[in-house]
């Protein structure tokens, strides 16, 4: 395989793993094994793999509530992800955070966030730390188009440009914030203009062309490493509803059909075949990924729920005073023994 075939092949694999994982997340819900229904699938946004592969291992990132795909591309263990989404003890966060709060310091995942725009400034702060410690690291803030209307994004861009921080702001523009199409949320969707107005590099690329995404991200992450922060928006389409319960009644079938036709995975596959890859070999890859994800799903389902008393752990650091459980308070007040 030529070098860029190798790359595209790797990216295809990443994207397939994302979609395959998200399908299992959906299944987890259908089997009522998920912790709640606030599950946001990144199907249609697999192009993020191009950005993640452009990051170095020591780089870090924060994500929004729709961050499963990004973390899968980064190398997450599907079983631990699904266990967390199921609220199990084996999950990345011991079942305390769930789908919207997956994090893993080992892989530089500074955390998914359930507050739109909530994690953006954290990446800026991480970049500040890298600069201060003279580490050649970059932090990437991933967020959706909805966060483009949150003020903290502009405060963060301004700080990044003012301080020349190694940070890249990545907007995953899937055209929707819940039921609101982007053109109903803003008068000017040329988001790159905003970034430039704040002194950043800015670019908008087709998020379904994972090679283009990768190439642009490599340039921007490289510039960021040299103190020139940037903003990248990748244009894609949210294939399904906002969360597991949403059937998207606010958009029509034609639009959805057209949107789903803009498929990063399909496009990559077609390209690989054009470049001589065999359909059979790709099918084999898909099957292998499916088997991996099926195993992860079963492992998550089998994983135990956390003991209820663990809820009092992790509020404060180790060896710090813990919160007093309510029953202990009532005992101190009402029990003849302790009163």
């Amino acid at each position: 395989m030529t070098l860029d075939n190798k790359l595209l092949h790797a990216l295809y694999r990443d994207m397939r793993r994302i979609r395959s994982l998200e399908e299992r997340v959906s299944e987890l819900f259908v089997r009522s094994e998920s912790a709640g229904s606030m599950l946001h699938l990144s199907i249609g946004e697999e192009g993020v793999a191009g950005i993640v592969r452009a990051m170095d291992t020591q780089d870090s990132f924060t994500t929004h509530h729709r961050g499963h795909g990004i973390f899968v591309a980064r190398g997450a263990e599907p079983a631990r992800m699904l266990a967390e989404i199921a609220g199990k003890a084996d999950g990345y966060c011991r079942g305390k955070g769930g789908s919207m709060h997956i994090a893993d310091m080992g892989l530089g995942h500074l955390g998914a966030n359930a507050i739109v725009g909530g994690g953006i400034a954290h990446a800026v702060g991480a970049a500040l730390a890298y600069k201060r410690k003279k580490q050649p690291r970059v932090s990437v803030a991933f967020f959706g188009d909805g966060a483009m209307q949150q003020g903290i994004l502009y405060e963060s861009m301004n700080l990044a440009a003012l301080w020349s921080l190694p940070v890249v702001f990545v907007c995953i523009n899937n055209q929707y914030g819940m039921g609101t199409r982007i053109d109903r949320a803003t008068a000017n969707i040329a988001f790159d203009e905003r970034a430039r107005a704040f002194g950043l590099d800015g670019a908008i690329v087709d998020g379904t062309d994972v090679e283009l995404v990768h190439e642009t991200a490599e340039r921007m992450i490289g510039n960021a490493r040299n103190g020139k922060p940037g903003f990248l928006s990748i244009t894609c389409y949210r294939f399904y509803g906002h969360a597991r319960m949403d059937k998207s009644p606010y958009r029509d079938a034609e639009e959805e059909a057209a949107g789903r036709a803009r498929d990063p995975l399909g496009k990559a596959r077609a390209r690989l075949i054009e470049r001589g890859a065999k359909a059979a070999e790709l099918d084999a890859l898909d099957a292998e990924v499916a088997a991996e994800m099926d195993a992860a799903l079963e492992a998550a389902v089998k994983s135990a729920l956390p003991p209820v008393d663990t809820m009092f752990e992790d509020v404060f650091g180790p060896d710090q005073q813990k919160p007093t459980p309510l029953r202990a308070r009532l005992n101190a007040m009402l029990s003849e023994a302790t009163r």
Partner: protein
Amino acid sequence: MSETTYREALRQALIDAMNADPDIVVLGEEVGLYGGAYGVTRGLIDQFGPERILDTPISEAAIVGAAVGAAMSGLRPVAELMYVDFVGIVMDQLANQAAKIRYMFGGQIGVPMVLRSQGGTGRSAAAQHSQSLEAWMAHIPGLRVAMPATVNDAYHLLRHALTLPDPVVFLEHKGLYVQKGTMDPAKPDAPWGKAVVRRGGTDLTIVTYSKMVLESLAAAEQLAAQGVSAEVIDLRTLNPLDDETIAASVRRTHRAMVVTEAHLTGGFSAELSARIQESCFDHLEEPVARVAGEDIPIPVSPPLERGSVPNAQLIAETGLWLARRTPPAWAAQ
């Protein structure tokens, strides 16, 4: 008079209020086309049009700020904050602006707006989508705070809030939307600012609000079976706060318990406990007990989430103990 749900009662209140007052507009994320994250505004955009039902970008600070300015300029906005957990983004507009404008400006003008939001646990929505933050708002002079527990209150408290000259924070509970009950548009359970005794009792007074009213009533049922007669008071509004109804009850029962879903420390349960001992000190047989949410962020895992907030059983166990019948299994020996 009709059987309906808490959600529909809220929706009907908005419809009736908007028909009665052309200056009322609703603005917030997903209130229009989507019909509201919890369906309270479903269909309103078809009925009242996009000029009165405004879908907004995800810009909470500007949404509330714009509502403040609109309220000062002849409209009566109902701003919807999808989750009360997001109030941290708008506390400046709420507490420094909406709440203080009348005062800072020497009474020249008020800010007649309603901020609707919802809180509470029950959906494994995790730490940033499950909180009960009424204590923040109830601490700020200039804000009214309403927290309906029943279908009829959902209707009447919202209707009344939409007639007041001042900002009202109207907090719903995500676990109550599907709650069924009777709504009588002609007859509120009580006037605005008055608490309602949801169940009479003689041995113990339980003071609560929002969804914990239901848990407390279920607990009172269990207590009755064990010979303890518990009175359950639903506050309905935290500001105004009906001290009289609480004091009158505790002076009769001589025992008081405060129940909230919110974290115990610094929660409104503390204000209620403090006021009860201030007004009923000579009448209390036992200290005022607080049964409240644990002092921990809300975990996502269902058993942990459930374990982090009070339920009927815990309330009943504590009530039985407070009434000096059997201590609970978890009592220290």
